[in-house]
């Protein structure tokens, strides 16, 4: 199986589906000759032309609005928002328009569109180019939210997203773009709402997404040498969420740590804990459920401050050990 990057997997998913379905088009800022801020759409303008790789002025609300309009008349737009932070400018179109149309029109409108957005910190881009806003998107009825962590998941989830009759927010972590993994050349889909157990274990369950899956796995693989056996559940999609896999895992291990980069207050770790505490897994818990998240601060510029703002491997390791030692 060929090994390609996360970025290439995303491009391949779009490319192949645009070849297959002429209703699919990409719209956004600097996605043509420049290839998008991160180079995801590099080469696509030459292949598909300016009618299907639609470069826009800097007008985020109306870019998303244009996609909503195209979607309701049966096109399949993919929007690239340059940084996830800029979705805050487009929230009317995402939440009030795209997310609600199917419901408020009594099921008679469908809005099959994808909004791709690079999120996350670690690039020194500071407070307005580094956020993890997936909780806001999860909160809105009518939206789906995908948070792929590997090239394989990115390609399969993006194809599902494009074919989904609902608006999908597709969150790409910018530090993952250059990571590599095996990805089949042919098209395949990964269904939404199916978590992936990235590592089996019996002592503790980590529930995570995106880059935090990799950080967790790095820690857990080291701990395995000491005989500590941690299970890592990658949610893959935050909405819909695979409650069963999480509940079954916690019922098996009896301990839960949720790790996410987004800030703590009202972050989705609380949602996972609520699901577990309201389920059969509650009876199996033998330690308090814990969350390790971004601090409640804007992402700072300075390298050391930026590291301190979001969970790092040493934080995950300390937290896992503390839970297993019964310190809480």
């Amino acid at each position, binding site marked *: 199986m060929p090994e390609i990057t996360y970025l290439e997997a995303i491009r391949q998913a779009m490319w192949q589906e645009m070849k297959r379905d*002429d*209703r699919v*088009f990409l719209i956004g800022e600097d996605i043509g000759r420049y290839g998008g801020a991160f180079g995801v759409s590099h080469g696509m303008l030459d292949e598909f032309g300016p*009618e299907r790789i*639609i470069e*826009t*002025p800097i*007008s985020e*609300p*109306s*870019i*998303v*609005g*244009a*996609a*909503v*309009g*195209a*979607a*309701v*008349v*049966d*096109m399949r*737009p993919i929007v690239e928002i340059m940084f996830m932070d800029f979705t805050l400018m487009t929230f*009317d*179109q995402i939440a*009030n*328009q795209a997310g609600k*149309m*199917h*419901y*408020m*029109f*009594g*099921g*008679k*409108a*469908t*809005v*099959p569109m994808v909004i791709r957005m690079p999120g996350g910190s670690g690039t020194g881009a500071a407070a307005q180019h580094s956020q993890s806003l997936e909780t806001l998107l999860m909160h809105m*009825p*009518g939206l*789906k939210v995908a948070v792929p962590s590997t090239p394989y998941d990115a390609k399969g989830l993006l194809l599902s997203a494009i074919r989904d*009759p*609902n608006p999908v927010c597709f969150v790409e972590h910018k530090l993952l773009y250059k990571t590599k993994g095996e990805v089949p050349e042919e098209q395949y889909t990964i269904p939404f709402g199916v978590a992936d157990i990235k590592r089996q274990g019996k002592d503790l369950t980590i529930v995570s997404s995106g880059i935090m899956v990799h950080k967790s796995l790095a820690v857990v693989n080291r701990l395995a040498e000491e005989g500590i056996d941690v299970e890592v559940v990658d949610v893959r999609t935050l909405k819909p969420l695979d409650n069963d896999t999480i509940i079954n895992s916690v019922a098996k291990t009896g301990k839960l740590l949720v790790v996410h980069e987004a800030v703590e207050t009202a972050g989705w770790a609380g949602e996972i804990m609520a699901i577990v505490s309201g389920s059969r897994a509650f009876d199996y818990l033998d330690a308090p459920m814990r969350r390790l998240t971004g601090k409640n601060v804007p992402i700072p510029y300075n390298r050391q401050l930026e590291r301190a703002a979001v969970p790092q491997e040493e934080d995950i390791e300390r937290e896992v050990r503390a839970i297993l030692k019964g310190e809480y």
Partner: protein
Amino acid sequence: MPKAKSKETLVEKAARLGLSNEDLVDMLRTMYLIRQFEYMADRLYALGKVHGTMHLSAGQEAVAVGISRATRKDDYLINHHRGHGHFISKGADINLMMSEFLGKENGYCKGRGGSMHIADFTSNNLGANGIVGGGIPHSLGVGLAIKHRKSDALVITLFGDGAANEGVFHETLNMAALWKIPSLYVCENNKYGMSMDVERATAKLPIAQRAEGYGIPWYAIDGNDLLLVYETMKNAADYIRAGNGPVLVETQTYRYFGHSKSDRNLYRSKEEIENWRTTKDPIMRFRGQLVEENIITDEFADQLDKEGLKINEDAVAFAEASPEPDPSTVTEYVYA
């Protein structure tokens, strides 16, 4: 755009525009139907039969009828929150509209939308919007789809004077001009955004002259002159269908009712409302011309008015006899 001759009679004008006497009568009929729908909506609210809010368009009927007559059934409509008239003039079923208004399961949106979110995707009516200006950018995507399909349909994008101060208005006009989007943008200037007078909210009038900055042809017209609306929209539609890109038309009109059900009209005088009603009413003006030029009699015009009332009374009976949505279905339709 050909300028109407000052001495032109209604008959001459209609002949020039290719409208038959039947067309003219039908236009009056539709205006009465809209007016009676709005009166009925107000009455139902006063009787405590309406759960939610509503935004009535009585006084603005010529805009809706002029646009729908000048465009095609397969043209797309992006509506604003004061959209009953446009929906009716595009051929909506009054029964299903009234059912939606009363929140019934057989309404256009199965009672999930109400007055502010009536849509009928089967007739290319892409829905009214509760967010001021929220629908404006949708025109870009609908236009891109029209171009992709190499169709000569257009998208009618409606919004009010208030929405013209939203950022998406400017963003969209810019992109529509760049991409020659086949959209007929209509700013229905009814003088107030809720209570805010257009003259206090808009640095330079008319609103439509803003199109100049985007290289888009624009017109600011009397929106209560039915045939002027018709003629302007027809010419604009022809221009757009020929692939020339968008046009912005500002129709200057007036709403008789308050902004919504909570409005006590504290920001305008009774005299102002009365002046518009008695001297500029679009229905009375058009009816007067039809009678004066012996196309119809006063009695016949009264008959059209009564027909409009009857259709709405029947619709109320239909809607009241219709089932409420089952509360157990509240979570349906969140996802397709």
